[in-house]
Structure formats: structure tokens, C-alpha cells
């Protein structure tokens, strides 16, 4: 009873936070002047031929980005999470940095680096510089920037998932074959759900991306929704324009389910006392280290360097601090609260899906993923439509709206990470606690959560990162005078000095890494007492 009630409460909250705003928005697409009509959709499909090209561009961009992110992210995740590669922790942090920077800023950094008179042009012939600059604009440049931005998602998920593989299976494998064979036949098949989930996330993130393709002049479909918002101010048409994206998400979800079928939830249990087996690289350690370092330099260090160089102006940092310190403080507070609630929601949703407690568990999974795919503006306007009423004004006028926006958009991330982690928590542990008469919540917090702690922590960290960099929905619902740092950076970008913007980005990266380091060490201390 306690279990059902708690999970129903969580689902109810999710419906209010995520589904109702979505329904409000879709409702606007069916009602014009309070009259039921399909005119918006008729127009949308009448223009289908015009929109096919940008949609094909979006699908191409998303597929290539997801493909390359998986090709790079999985080996990197294995090398950094499963081997004794030298400096693997530092490399993992370095390679994750692009995830902390909004993709649009990464595109600007690459432009600063590869432009005709950019950083690189000082060291190479003018003709080559021109070639590189030209290469940046269009599909190749978009793929390059987005792979750099989103590849850490696959890498981090691979690192998290390899911890879920039972060392006993790998030990058994070692009796008959060497590590490459074990990785190929045991480890990789076991973590395939995680890899596919990572690929799917990257696909969806790239599919919804607007800033980078617009900057690098590659026409994509999500601009259609943006146009309806910013040129026509037509919420109904904007919601309708987002529906093909929802259709694609459902198709991707169906494909994922078809590929995995029952494999998704078959990760083997790891009980305390069993440690993950590390692959010894031996003489391959140094070459692998050099290769990863080279990749880190190409994907991360160069744009970061371009940002740092651009920020080197006498007063850039002091000006950046004076203009954005308050926004930075708010962003950190919002991100901590947001990540904590995301972790809580994600845990219960993941539990519900894993144990299929309620009949509509699949609907919960689908809803969170659909919300993840929706443009932030659609969610933002939906939240306004739902909450901006005299009765709920006390919520609407507060920072709680930002937290609601985070929950609506990112619950899929923490839910899926929890889902993967729960796969390796033996159900017998919970059953044993049940035999002793422990109520469900006690079993969850004293048995399941501690056993699933690495995944719970990973969910919090991922939630923290995504909250900290969120722009889409929070831009529309933050209370007046209480903007977040990404919003501040973007508003200052319009005619703000490039050195100021670069300095702000460097501050974002530094503060995020510092907070993650502090939180990581706190959690490590907590874990060491287990």
C-alpha cells in the first residue's frame, strides 16, 4: 500500500508538472478563438514538402552526431572506467567539460579558433585557414561541435554501466579468453542498454538543437517551432510544429525497445564486497594515454583554449564577476535543489519502471522521454499557461517555477540512470528486508538506495549538470530579477564584449568543476564509510 501510494503520488506530481503543461500547449493547437479546429495541423502538413528538407537535415545531423558520439564515447568510457589508464580520472573530467558549456558557446569558441583570423590562422597558411573556416560552416562543423558537446553523455553512461557488470561473469570469462574477448562477448553486451540509451539521448539532444545549426548555417527543423514563437507568437502553431519531433521520439523509443526487448533489465547483481575488475593495459597504457590525450586536446582543449585566450583582457574577469556573481549564486542553488528533486523523482520513476509496479509503467517512461525531447520554450509556455493564475500566483512568481521546469524536462535522465542501476540490485535484498517486517519506505532508504548508491549519485550529478546549463524553459519562467547564469550569459552575448562572454564561460566551467569536485569528495567520504 505504502509503495503504491508513494509511486502514485510521484506519477501524479509528474502529470501536474510535465503532462498538464504539454496538454495545455497541444490544446492551444486545436483551439483557435475557442473553436475546435485542425487548421494548424492542416497548414503544417500542407507545408510538409517545404519542411521535409530541414527535417531530413535534422535527422542526418542527429544520426551522425549520435553515431560518432557512440563510436568515440564507448571506447573512451571503457578506457576511462574499466582500465588502469594513467590519469584516467583527470582525463574523464577534462573530456566531460564540454557538457558543462552550452553548445552554442562551443560553436562560437570553435569559430574563434578556426575563423580566418582566429587563433589557428596565426600558425597556418592563409589558404589552409580559409579551408578550415569554410569547413566549419555546414553539416561537418555542426557534427563536430555537437559530437564534442554530447559525446560525454555516452562516455559517462558507459562508465556508470560498466560498474553494473558482474565481476563474477568476467572472472569466468577470463578462464577461457583474454580481455578483448571478454569485453566483446560479456561486458559490451551487458552494457548495451546503457550504450543505446546514451546514443538515444545524444540523438534526441542533437535533434532538438537550434543554436549551433543556426550559427553554423545548417537549416534544421526545430527552427520551425522557434519561428512560430518568435516571428508569429503563435503558441498553437509552435506546439503543432513540435509534434513531428514527438513522433520521432516515439519511433526512437520503439526502436530502442525492439533492439533491447527484455535485455534492458538483465544486468547482473553486484553485492557489496565485489569490486569491478580493472583491465590492465600493460604496454598499451602509454599509447592509449597518448591517444586519449590527443582526443581530449582536439575536442576539449582547443575550444577551451580559444575561450581562455578570448577572455584574457585586463578587466574581463572582474567585470564578469560584477555582472554575473548573483546569477551564478542562484544557478548553483537552483541546480542543487533541482538535481536533488530530479534524483528523488528519477529514483521513484526508475523503481516504478524497473519493478513495473503500476500498469502504466511504460507510459511513465514514454512521458518523461517525450518531455525531454520537447523544445524548452514549449514546456516554458505550457508551465506559464498552467501556473499563471491568481490561485497559483504564489508559485508562479517564485523560483519554484525554475525547479518545476527542470523536473519537467530532465526527469528522463535520472529515471533512466536509476533504472539501469536498479538492474544490478538483487531483488532478494529487498525481499529479505520485507521478511523482517520493514515497511516499504524503510526498505527503499535503508536497503535499495544504499545498494544503488553509485547510480543514485550519478543521477544527481547528471541532473546537476543539466540544471546548471539549462536555458530553454527556465528562460521563460524565472522570476523577474532572478535570472540564472546561462540566461545572463545569453542576454549579455547581444553586443557584450567577447572577452566578457568568454570570461563568463570560463567561470561557469571552473565553478561547475569545483562544485563537482567538492561534492564528489563529500560523497566519496560518505561512500568510504559504507
Amino acid at each position, binding site marked *: 500500500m505504502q509503495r503504491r501510494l508513494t509511486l502514485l503520488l510521484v506519477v501524479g506530481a509528474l502529470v501536474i508538472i510535465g503532462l498538464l503543461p504539454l496538454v495545455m500547449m497541444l490544446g492551444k493547437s486545436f483551439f483557435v478563438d475557442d473553436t475546435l479546429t485542425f487548421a494548424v495541423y492542416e497548414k503544417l502538413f500542407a507545408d510538409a514538402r*517545404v519542411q521535409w528538407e530541414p527535417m531530413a537535415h535534422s535527422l542526418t545531423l542527429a544520426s551522425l552526431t549520435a553515431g560518432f558520439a557512440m563510436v568515440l564515447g564507448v571506447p573512451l568510457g571503457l578506457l576511462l572506467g574499466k582500465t588502469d589508464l594513467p590519469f584516467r580520472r583527470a582525463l574523464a573530467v577534462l573530456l566531460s567539460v564540454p557538457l558543462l558549456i552550452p553548445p*552554442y558557446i562551443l560553436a562560437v569558441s570553435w569559430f574563434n579558433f578556426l*575563423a*580566418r583570423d*582566429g587563433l589557428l590562422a596565426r600558425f597556418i597558411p592563409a589558404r589552409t585557414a580559409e579551408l578550415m*573556416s569554410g569547413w566549419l560552416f555546414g553539416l561537418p562543423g555542426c557534427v563536430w561541435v555537437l559530437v564534442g558537446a554530447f559525446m560525454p553523455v555516452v562516455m559517462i553512461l558507459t562508465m556508470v554501466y560498466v560498474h553494473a557488470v558482474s565481476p563474477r561473469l568476467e572472472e569466468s570469462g577470463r578462464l577461457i579468453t583474454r580481455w578483448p574477448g571478454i569485453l566483446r562477448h560479456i561486458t559490451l553486451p551487458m552494457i548495451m542498454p546503457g550504450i543505446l540509451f546514451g546514443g538515444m539521448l545524444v540523438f534526441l539532444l542533437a535533434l532538438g538543437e537550434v*543554436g549551433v545549426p*543556426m*550559427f553554423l*548555417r545548417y*537549416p534544421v527543423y526545430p*527552427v520551425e517551432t522557434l*519561428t512560430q*514563437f*518568435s*516571428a*508569429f*507568437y503563435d*503558441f498553437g502553431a509552435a506546439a503543432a510544429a513540435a509534434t513531428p519531433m514527438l513522433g520521432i521520439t516515439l519511433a526512437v523509443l520503439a526502436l530502442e525497445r525492439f533492439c533491447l526487448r527484455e535485455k534492458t533489465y538483465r544486468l547482473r547483481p553486484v553485492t557489496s564486497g565485489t569490486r569491478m575488475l580493472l583491465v590492465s593495459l600493460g604496454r598499451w597504457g602509454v599509447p592509449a594515454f597518448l591517444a586519449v590525450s590527443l582526443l581530449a586536446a582536439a575536442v576539449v582543449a582547443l575550444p577551451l583554449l580559444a575561450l581562455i585566450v578570448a577572455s584574457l583582457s585586463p578587466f574581463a574577469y572582474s567585470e564578469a564577476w560584477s555582472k554575473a556573481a548573483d546569477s551564478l549564486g542562484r544557478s548553483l*542553488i537552483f541546480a*542543487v*535543489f*533541482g538535481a*536533488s528533486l530530479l*534524483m528523488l523523482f528519477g529514483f521513484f520513476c526508475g523503481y516504478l519502471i524497473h519493478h513495473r509496479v503500476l500498469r502504466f509503467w511504460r507510459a511513465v517512461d514514454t512521458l518523461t522521454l517525450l518531455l525531454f525531447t520537447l523544445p524548452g*520554450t514549449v514546456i516554458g*509556455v505550457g508551465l*506559464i499557461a498552467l501556473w*499563471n*493564475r491568481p490561485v497559483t500566483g*504564489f508559485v508562479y*512568481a*517564485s523560483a*519554484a517555477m525554475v*525547479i518545476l521546469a527542470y523536473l519537467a524536462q530532465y526527469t528522463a535522465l535520472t529515471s533512466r540512470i536509476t533504472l539501469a542501476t536498479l538492474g544490478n540490485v538483487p531483488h532478494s535484498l529487498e525481499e529479505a528486508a520485507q521478511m523482517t517486517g520493514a515497511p516499504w519506505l524503510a526498505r527503499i532508504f*535503508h536497503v535499495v*538506495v*544504499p545498494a544503488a*548508491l553509485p547510480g543514485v549519485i550519478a543521477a*544527481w550529478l547528471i541532473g546537476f549538470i543539466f540544471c546548471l546549463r539549462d*536555458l*530553454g524553459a527556465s*528562460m*521563460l519562467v*524565472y*522570476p*523577474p*530579477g532572478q535570472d540564472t547564469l546561462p*540566461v*545572463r550569459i*545569453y*542576454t*549579455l*552575448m*547581444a*553586443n*557584450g*564584449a567577447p572577452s566578457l562572454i568568454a570570461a563568463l564561460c570560463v567561470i561557469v566551467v571552473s565553478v561547475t568543476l569545483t562544485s563537482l569536485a567538492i561534492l564528489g569528495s563529500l560523497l566519496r567520504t*560518505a561512500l568510504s*564509510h559504507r
Partner: protein
Amino acid sequence: MNRRVSTLLLVVAAAGIAGAIWTAFRPGDNVVVVYVSEDQVFSEPILKDFERETGIQIKAVYDTEETKSAGAMNRLIAEKTNPQADVYWANEPIRAEVLRQQGVSAPYRSPNAEGIPEQFRNAEGHWTGFSARGRILIVRRWLKEKPLSIRAYTDPRFNGKAVIANPLFGTTTAHMAALFIVWGDAPAKAFLDAVRKNGVRVSSSNGESADQVATGAFQFALADTDDVHSRQKQGQPVEGIYPDQEKGGLGCFIVPNAVLLIKGAPRPEKGRKLIDYLLSRETEKKLAYSDAGQIPLHSDVDTPPAVRRLETLKVMNVDYAAVAAKMQMIQPLLRDWVGH
């Protein structure tokens, strides 16, 4: 020890809920809420001055360039039934006009609007223009044959050497709509086709166009005066040319800021005070001397040498309400044009 870890997690989660509640508060009494589409780097100092001079606290929502200024406008429209803002500071009158059409604005005739030409004011007082940008050509400083008209976009000498911001967004849309009004639909469409045939590149914003010219990727672009001024302040080798200034020429398209009072504003008195402040000659002077280098609409406002005075310019004579209406009509055409 599991209990300790679980307790830690519970505390963090509880802190999340408590924090969300704790941060829930409404703006205080001595506050005015303003939504701003003018660039934050230019508008924030003015609003801070207002705070200092009146003691009224400003709570602002700024717009973002990356989202094509979709934030503040969409918020205002979505909040129409229960307004949160008192004032909207638009960076062009078209948005103000759209809000008037949507029933979001309330009429208010500020005493400080006296002296502002009627072309830049709504007749019923729904919005009032002040400090304007000009739509000008940004060119490389050492370019020998400089373009003097927007028709340079169709000049074969500049084939593949010009860039323009995406006309689906911002002041470029308004500028194109103004051309459709002044020239008529067929000539304006022919112009756009010729521009496309001449190998123009489309950038994501005026700022990016200005950067592309500054880096030498292109020889000229249409941009706003503040884009040019800010690049010049950064030491970039660019200059601004007011186009079509010859006798009988088309004139320069002027884009004033516009301010309006929100219908049903929670704090209308303070909103009016802010509007009076923004429409004052002092504010126009500050914006003229700022990096924005905006053109005052009051004729007797002091300006720096680099900022042209309105009376020295040949201005494109358009009705901004008509421009707003035309913008909606030509969007499908512009979308096709961009998509080609």
C-alpha cells in the same frame, strides 16, 4: 553506515523541497517589473540609474539573442490573463505593435513623449518610441569601392561577398517588411530573388553578420548601428554607412526602441514613472553616449560626433503598424527564401 548515507540523501532531497518553498516570494511593494528586449549591456545601466534616482527597485526579465528574442514577448503574451510585468521595453516598435494588437498594452501618454515625431508613436498612446537604431551597412574599413545602397546586395561586384542576417528574425524581418511596403510586393520580391542570385550568405543574427565582416569573411552586411558601434569600440576595422541617402533615395530604415505599459499591470503608477524616465531626454542622451550610440528622437538632445542626429538623416518613411502587419504576411515567403 547505510543509514548515514540514506540520511544524507534524504537531507539533500528535503533541502531541495525546502529550498523551492523558501525561494517562493513575490516582488516587494517598492518594485517595478520590466521585461526588456533591448540588449542587456545597454539597458541595464539605464535601469540601474532609475533605481538610484527614484529608489524604486527594478526587477527585470531580459531577452536573449540566441533565442531570437522569443523570451520576453512570449512571456508577455502567455501572461496576458494574469500580467506580472508593468512595463515592456521593446528594442523595436514592431513588437510593441504586435502586443497592442494582442491586447497586451494599455494606453499611456507620457509628458516626456512631447517632441518625439509622431511617426515614432502610436496615435492612441499604446507605445512610444525613443532612442533609435539605424539599419546601416557595416563594411571593412579599407574596402575601396564601398556600397552606398542596400541595392549593393544585387550588385555583381559584390557577388558572394555580402552577408545578411536571417530575415525570419529580428530587425531584418522588419526591414524587409518595410521594403515590401515602400516598394510594393512584386519589386521587393524581385529584389530578394536578385539578392539570393547574387550569392548572399545568411547568418544567424546581425551581430554575427557584423563579426563576419570584421573578420574579413565578407565585405559588407546590413546591421544595426549598435552592432557597428560595438565592433568599432572593440577596435575592429569596420565602419558604418547610412544607405540610400542620396536625393530621392530610399532613406535609412530607423528602428526606435519602444516602451509600453502593460494592460492590468500590478503596479501601474510605478510603471508610468519608469516610462517617463525612459522617454526623458536624459535617457536618450545616455543611450547616445553609450556603446549603443543610439539616435535620439528628441531634436534637442546632445549627441557625440559619431552619432548622427535624426534631422541630418534621410529616413525611410513607414508606418510601423503597417510594417507589423506586413511582417506576418511575408513570413512564408521569407521562409522559402531562407530555405532555398
